[in-house]
């Protein structure tokens, strides 16, 4: 029994081995980008949107609304990042129902890659928002004694993100595989249905946590103090 799609080599080229994780990631990417390209071509303001465009608008506006609700400001760059996280993870998890398709999110390498992306994106957003000095100063607040704890907290956030997503998706697949041997028809269906739900929830949680981390890194403490004083 294979526990991770990293071990499945699909093809080799130029001396590189392309495993199932990478190939399936490309499939998910192709689906997302292809649908987006087909739906958003020839957009005109004076033409009423069709149902596909309306569906995409609902998805994008919902993501934007959720992110702006957390960041309390218009943050398109955060939306590009966190929205892509959500869409990629959600579609990968939903494709769990396709027989033989191993979601890339069931690979610890993928979840680590996404967690590392968040881990790097958070300070980048924070520095671009507040500047390098003010961002680094946040690590020694309220006292310089807190510096190691803040650093550990920062890394543990990334690790927890990676492990949580990987554990949920991989466990769903593993349990479905085990139950397939016990009760070939009934339990796998239930587990797949549960997997769809938990997959969406995990995508939502991953994206929301990433947004919260970025928002906390970009938030201006002085502004929040002033806001509390006014309220």
């Amino acid at each position, binding site marked *: 029994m294979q526990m*991770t799609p990293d071990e499945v080599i699909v093809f080799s080229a130029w001396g590189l081995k392309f*495993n199932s994780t990478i190939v399936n990631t490309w499939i998910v990417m192709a689906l997302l980008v292809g649908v*987006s390209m087909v739906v*958003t071509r020839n957009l005109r303001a004076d033409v009423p949107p069709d149902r596909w465009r309306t569906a995409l608008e609902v998805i994008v506006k919902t993501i934007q609304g959720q992110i702006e609700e957390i960041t309390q400001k218009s943050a398109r760059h955060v939306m590009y990042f966190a929205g892509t996280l959500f869409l990629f993870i959600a579609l990968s998890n939903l494709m769990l129902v396709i027989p033989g398709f191993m979601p890339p999110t069931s690979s610890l*390498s*993928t979840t680590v890659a996404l967690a590392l992306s968040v881990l790097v994106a958070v300070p980048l957003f924070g520095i671009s928002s507040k500047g390098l000095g003010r961002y680094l100063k946040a690590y020694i607040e309220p006292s310089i004694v807190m510096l190691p704890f803040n650093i550990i907290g920062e890394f543990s956030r990334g690790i927890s993100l990676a492990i949580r997503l990987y554990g949920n998706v991989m466990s769903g697949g593993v349990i479905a595989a085990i139950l397939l041997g016990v009760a070939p028809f009934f339990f796998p269906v239930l587990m797949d249905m549960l997997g769809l739900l938990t997959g969406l929830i995990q995508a939502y949680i991953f994206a929301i946590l990433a947004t919260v981390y970025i928002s906390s890194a970009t938030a201006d403490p002085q502004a929040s103090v002033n806001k509390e004083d006014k309220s």
Partner: protein
Amino acid sequence: MSIDWITVIAQIANFLVLVWLLKRFLYRPILDGIDAREAEIARSMAEAGKAQQKAEAAAAQYRAQQAQLHADRDTLVDKALQASETQRDALLAAARAKLEQEQQDWHKHLQREREQFTAQLQRAAAETLLELTRKALRELADETLEAAIVRNVGTRLHAIADELSQAAGDSTEALASTRDALPEAAQAQLQADIKKLLPHTALRFETNPQQAPGLILRIGGAQVAWTVDSYTDEFDALLNDRLGAGASGRMRSSGG
């Protein structure tokens, strides 16, 4: 559970590419499309607002023009009514004036016809009276009318002999005027009467076709006459009374 770091790097690269691609083909087109549509809706709403304002202005202008037209129409109707009333009054006044004029003309015409008829009747009556008197005298007294007239004048001259002498004064001529020439016997009788009363006065006879039948004798400032006029005047008065009574009776009967 193991981590393939090459796969991790590849997935990071894949994820970054996916972020760029979705930003390029999903987020920007969708959000820009929404913004453009909102702008289009806002522009359409603004245009609709302007169109509504224009329509309201046009409606207000139309209502003002309609009110003005109504006011003008009322003014025109009032003027037309006043003009028609004025014209009607003028026409009525003209009709009344014409009617009064026609009534006056008719009255004048009637009066004139009556006067002509009366005059004709008077002349006919005078002629008839004269002929009847002449006939009656000839049949009853075997005497001519002229002789009777001369005798009547002579009798009246004798009655006023003194006044006649004073009126004659220094006049030496008396004038006997008749419409037709007097018979010789009558002339002789009258000359004899004048000779007896006024010996120095010569009598001259003349005829006047305009004069009423009879005899008019003028001596100085005095005048003695007998003509049919006095009788025809009475006849005329009686006739006028009868005619007047007959006309009023007809008017009463026609007036109902």
